[in-house]
């Protein structure tokens, strides 16, 4: 195995042996899952259909309708059983029955309901919880009553249930298929998300990649064993591999869930897309080139400074510049400033996000994407050369402050390739 190979093997193995790698690798997907769960829970609590909210099947329900609004008192519950609410004329009698355990849930529609829009819900259960939500039955009954009070179309307009069919024509006048549009968005959007995750999870690790040798005074031992360019290239390849492993860890459960859900027929027709292979390949190449330049710039930061802490500060600035296109989302969305979009797409540090955003909003041609990928790759190669050169210059300079004039001095002969 070549010396570059030895560096790659050593670095990848020791990264994978670190508990922090696995903690980050597993925590990120878990954090995403928790985020999705919270969103789902919030939706669950605010839903008005009978599928949402706490189960009421088997509970004793009643109502007091002082406004005489309800037309019916029977609904279909979450178990698809017909359930009828008992009617009480007096609120105090109903409340009394509730307190004595004869009822579980009592709905009170006050006399001024048509003005106030207020409905009171009283519950008594063995275990009351903050997650209890019993508004679905009364909401269903109120909706049914509202429907019967107005024309069907009035109800649909008010409740925003109107279907709007849009037909969009492309520049060549062919009708754009909505599914086709979404299938174009998915690859770059997924790559943008993955790149963002890589920056968050591996940013610090990248910055520290070459400072460790300096901080631990290993540089001299290494530099009599291996050429600096081989060391830096080995480090970069290993960091790329660690990133790919991170992505695989992230994508395996997602892919497995998707396949499982597809096989079970749980994915609605409108969520199944035929992805354009060209788009998928170009997006993947943009992701790889983007991660390469992020790695190269991080290694350059590490080569410039003496300590991991300083390198982290530099990387923070780089990450900020990289996400500038996200902060200027609007100009990518409506392509209101094509010149700025183009500049950001070819300025190496902002190019990753800019290229992906333009691909998401379909403001970029495949040729432009290819030029962007070449741009990122070439600049990455130059940055790697520069990082190697600077690493040679200050590999054994263990002082904290760096003098840029010295850093750009004369190169040594023996390490030239």
């Amino acid at each position, binding site marked *: 195995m070549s010396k570059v190979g030895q560096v790659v093997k050593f670095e990848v193995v*020791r990264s994978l042996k670190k508990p922090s790698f696995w903690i980050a690798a597993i925590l990120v997907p878990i954090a995403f899952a928790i985020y999705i769960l919270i969103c789902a829970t919030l939706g669950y609590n605010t839903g008005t259909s009978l599928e949402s909210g706490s189960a009421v099947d088997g509970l004793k329900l009643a109502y007091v309708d002082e406004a005489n609004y309800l037309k019916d008192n029977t609904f279909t519950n979450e178990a698809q059983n017909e359930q009828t609410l008992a009617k009480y004329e007096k609120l105090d009698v109903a409340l009394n029955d509730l307190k004595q355990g004869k009822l579980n849930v009592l709905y009170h529609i006050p006399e001024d309901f048509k003005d106030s829009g207020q409905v009171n819900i009283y519950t008594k259960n063995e275990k009351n919880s903050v997650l209890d939500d019993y508004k679905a039955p009364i909401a269903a009954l109120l909706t049914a009553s509202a429907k019967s009070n107005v024309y069907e179309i009035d109800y649909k307009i008010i409740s925003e249930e109107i279907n709007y069919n849009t037909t969009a024509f492309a520049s060549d006048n062919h009708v754009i298929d909505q599914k086709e549009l979404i299938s174009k968005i998915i690859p770059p959007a997924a790559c943008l998300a993955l790149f963002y995750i890589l920056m968050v999870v591996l940013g610090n690790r990248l910055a520290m990649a070459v400072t460790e040798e300096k901080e631990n*005074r290993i540089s001299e031992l290494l530099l009599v*064993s291996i050429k600096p360019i081989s060391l830096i290239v080995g480090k970069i390849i290993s960091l790329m591999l660690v990133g790919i492993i991170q992505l695989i860890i992230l994508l395996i459960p997602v892919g497995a869930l998707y396949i499982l859900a597809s096989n079970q027929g749980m994915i609605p027709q409108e969520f199944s897309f035929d992805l354009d292979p060209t788009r998928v390949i170009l997006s993947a190449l943009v992701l790889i080139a983007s991660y390469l330049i992020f790695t190269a710039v991080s290694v350059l930061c590490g080569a410039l400074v003496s300590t991991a802490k300083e390198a982290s500060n530099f990387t923070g600035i780089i990450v900020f510049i990289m996400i500038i296109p996200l902060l200027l989302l609007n100009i990518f969305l409506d392509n209101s400033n094509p010149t700025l979009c183009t500049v950001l797409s070819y300025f190496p540090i902002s190019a990753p996000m800019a290229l992906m955003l333009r691909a998401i909003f379909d403001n970029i041609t495949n040729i432009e994407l290819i030029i962007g990928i070449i741009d990122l790759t070439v600049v990455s190669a130059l940055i790697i050369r520069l990082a190697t050169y600077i690493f040679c210059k200050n590999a054994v300079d263990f002082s904290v402050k760096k003098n840029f004039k010295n850093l750009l001095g004369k*190169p040594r002969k023996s390490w030239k390739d």
Partner: protein
Amino acid sequence: MPEKKNIISVRNFRIGFGGKTVIKNLSFDVKQGEIFGLLGSNGCGKTTTIRALLGIYPAERGELLINGEPFTPGKGIKVGYLPEERGLYKKESVIDVMNYFGKLRGLKQPKRWSLNYLKRVGLEDHAKTRVDRLSQGQQQKVQLGITIMNDPDILILDEPTKGFDPVNRRLLLEIIDELHQRGTTIIMITHYMDEVEKLCDRILLLKDGTAYAYGTVSEVRRKHRFKSLDQIFVDIYGAKE
């Protein structure tokens, strides 16, 4: 007896940092198989000279050759270097670090060599111990092992016994002697003049960026009225130090 060939040649070497010249004009040779002492006060440029010889620092002027060519890692003659600034990958196990360096230095069976070495220096039970859990002396033994693991033709030791306890110091000197017997050329930077008198064939005393004294130990002593090296050192640097 034929003259031994020069395995290291330094000619008209000059280097400086931040506008200050550290080495003005230095020329010397190291002969194959000898133990060569590079001596001088702190900051006189001993380590800088070695770093320039190994290509870590670029020379401003002059030629620094090992076996007739500038040093390139992994090419030509095998060099072992124990730097003054010593460190290891602290979070890795001893055997993993030694194995890594062994592979970088082209050893076919670095693990086997490392285990044998650890046994010799009494660290066989620490092969799987993390480096940062070893004592300073134990770490130095590991560093020495890494330095000599490629069976070097030239061994460069920068203050090798610094921080060693007497037992480890004796072990180190034994290993140096053993390598010397096998024909390894050794360059030593040290402040211990007793070690120099005992071990070195020839010495170079650096002062003000030039070679103040250069020759065999007896030649240098003769020039200074047979004073001990320790006394000569004090005479030369005493006023400044």
